[in-house]
């Protein structure tokens, strides 16, 4: 079987790719319920902070460091950055949501792409050494298909934001067209986020975003919820 790398990347970034992302709002549902997000523009602002704080300094940086680890240090790097990634997620629902998504995503790609790195990751997850995270699954899959770190980051950020936009189209009064315009308007931001991630050091890891986190924490206590986080 031949895998066309570009086509496979489309398949992976498709919001229909079954990772469970469709059931996560990462806290924006709380801000919608509390009228902090009323329009596509408000949602755009929320997405930018989410991207520039939580994705760039946490998920993006950790998956880049794992991607770049030399072969002999691959397993130890995978373990230490997986632990760090979960240690910096303070809201419980976000930890749970990511581990659920990571589990589903990892199981699926292991059946699609035969790769030693993914297999090592899967055994470490199966013996409960670490919790799976979608950012790392995505990173290892891109590495298996020989995509560069830059391509991996750009596409991971795009996929994460696109999933959230699609969820918002279902969850708040922004229409299909506004949703598509919004994701298009974020291309520059995604590119900048990728460049920032490439310039960071391991010591830059982690970003506390009080406003985002309070919404992510309070989501748990919402009376009626469409999303798991």
């Amino acid at each position: 079987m031949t895998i066309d790398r570009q086509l496979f990347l489309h398949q992976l970034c498709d919001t229909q790719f079954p990772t469970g992302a469709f059931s996560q709002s990462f806290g924006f549902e709380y801000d919608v319920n509390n009228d902090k997000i009323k329009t596509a523009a408000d949602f755009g602002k929320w997405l930018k902070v989410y991207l520039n704080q939580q994705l760039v300094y946490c998920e993006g940086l950790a998956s880049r460091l794992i991607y770049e680890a030399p072969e002999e240090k691959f397993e130890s790097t995978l373990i230490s950055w997986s632990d760090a990634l979960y240690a910096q997620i303070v809201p419980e629902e976000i930890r749970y949501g990511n581990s659920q998504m990571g589990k589903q995503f990892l199981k699926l790609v292991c059946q699609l792409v035969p790769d030693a790195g993914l297999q090592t990751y899967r055994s470490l997850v199966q013996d409960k050494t670490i919790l799976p995270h979608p950012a790392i699954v995505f990173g290892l899959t891109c590495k298996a298909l020989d995509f560069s770190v830059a391509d991996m980051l750009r596409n991971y950020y795009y996929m994460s934001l696109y999933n959230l936009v699609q969820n918002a189209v279902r969850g708040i009064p922004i229409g299909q067209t506004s949703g598509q315009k919004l994701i298009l308007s974020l291309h520059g931001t995604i590119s900048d986020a990728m460049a920032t991630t490439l310039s960071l050091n391991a010591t830059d890891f982690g970003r506390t975003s009080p406003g985002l986190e309070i919404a992510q924490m309070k989501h748990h206590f919402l009376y009626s919820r469409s999303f798991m986080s």
Partner: protein
Amino acid sequence: MIKSTPKTTGTLKLSVVRRDHQTVPDNVFFQGAFKLMRPQYLDSTGQVMYCLLNPGGGYLDGDRYHLEVTVGANADLYLTAQSATKIYKTPDDCVRQVNKLTVGENGILEFTADPVIAFENATYFQEQTIDLTPSSSLFITDMVTPGWSRDGKGFQYNSVTLKTQISINGHIRVIDNLVLNPAELAVQSMGMLETHTHYAGVYLIDPRIKTETEETLAQLLSERFPETAVGVSQLAIPGLAIRILGEHTQEVKAVADACQYFFRRQILKRDNELFQKY
């Protein structure tokens, strides 16, 4: 510009141990700009209370502070500070504080640092590593104000970074990296401090904290402080993280104090009072 490694401006080493029914100092060392008030016993719990002083009044450009606190097995320490941490402008360098806190088995540490007030053009880094055992108890809080500037606008500092890492038996379980850098991202923006001006972060860690504790504390805080933005979440270890956003130091401090009372009453099951400085 190449700078020589700056000398430590203030060093403080404090270790306490349990002796009979009381916690007593084992080793107390301070030099430079850090001083400790003599230990006090505020109640009959045997907990020792120390108050940290910075007689200089504020932190100056290039200052380096080193704080090392060890709470022995079964020992019980309440460490607080006397006044706000003022960081004056740092045109050439920055101010850096390194805290290393260790709590032994069944040991208790309550550390309530005072609010950070960073002046116009100040850069402040605080790096805090906390080592616990599975039976240790910890209450810790950090507070950041909008700082001080001549025009009174707030957020005129270069950056305030508060990095905290909590490990249990050597495994990192919590990483908290608050970076407030107005040039990089407006502090009063969506997702950050939103419309608020003051931030406080609190951690409560204790093996007796259960899944239900999260809801009990969240409910208590939302009833008592309906106007303040407060989030409570359980950690991956038995413990809670609390994020607080408000408009005044007193407002966020009141929520942090309520968390400390909760820690004492509901978790440690004792009803001793907090030290009131003001």
